[in-house]
């Protein structure tokens, strides 16, 4: 099995606020991520697909195809958007790295026809990220 990873960057705004909690609780739990007008990040997404290289092309999948899937499913949905207001898949959820990475996994998995989605890592900043992979696969996302 060979793993192939593509990285993309997108920029988006968000706010952490749970309407079921009081303003004080929101402030206490989310801190400055609860600032009323939101804020933004440069996100980096790493998508890893696992598979066997095709004997004819030598490819697990055509990187151009993966690039197109990421463009359609992630960039067009999230790049330069407000994650709370403009991404229906995140409606009603707190747009944390943990939730966004799961939404991205669910968007990508059915679209990848060659190989299988193996690992998705989303960086909100260089020092904060979330990983998503299927239970029961390799303990580490990137091997």
């Amino acid at each position, binding site marked *: 099995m060979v793993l192939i990873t593509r990285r993309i960057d997108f920029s988006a705004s968000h706010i952490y606020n749970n309407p079921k909690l009081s303003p004080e609780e929101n402030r206490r739990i*989310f*801190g400055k991520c609860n600032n009323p007008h939101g804020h933004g990040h440069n996100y980096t997404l790493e998508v890893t697909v696992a598979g066997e290289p095709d004997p004819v092309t030598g490819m697990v999948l055509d990187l151009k195809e993966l690039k197109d899937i990421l463009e359609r499913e992630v960039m067009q949905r999230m790049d330069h958007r407000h994650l709370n207001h403009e991404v229906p898949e995140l409606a009603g959820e707190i747009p944390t*790295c943990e939730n966004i990475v*799961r939404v991205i996994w*669910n968007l990508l998995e059915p679209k990848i026809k060659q190989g299988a989605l193996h690992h998705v890592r989303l960086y909100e900043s260089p020092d904060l*990220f979330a990983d*998503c992979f299927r*239970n029961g696969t390799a303990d580490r996302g990137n091997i």
Partner: protein
Amino acid sequence: MSAKTNGAELRIELGRRYHFSASHRLHTAHLSEEENCRVFGKCNNPFGHGHNYVLEVSVSGRVDPATGMIANLADLDGFVERAVLQVFDHKSLNEDVPAFQEKVPTTENLCIDIYKRLKSFSHAKLERVRIEETRNNSFEYAGEELARVPVASAAKKELR
């Protein structure tokens, strides 16, 4: 929860990177001066040297629907600050950390030591620590219990 895959089928981990700087000298009393020099090379230079370490901590657990979080970053940051950064940052690993008066402060041993310090984090399950000694060298430790044990066997082990 959106979409069709629920949390039970996917595992989500939260990863956080921390930075600390420390000095060390690789040297063991079990070897002669010549052997220390041969084994550790310039890392055995008598007055030690230092690194800007990057510590990457990964935790897993249920994503709380109310917060969207596996663990509140303030809790994780506070715990790592107290358990690790205050102990190691701007210190001599050999002189200031009792564990390394016996053990050689390689980054392998540092991984194991830091893993043990963080294992008791109560808000999520520690999955692993990964340390970059330089940007070209990194080391990981995920504990011994379930390492390299197939998932089915691991589940059985937990049941006992």
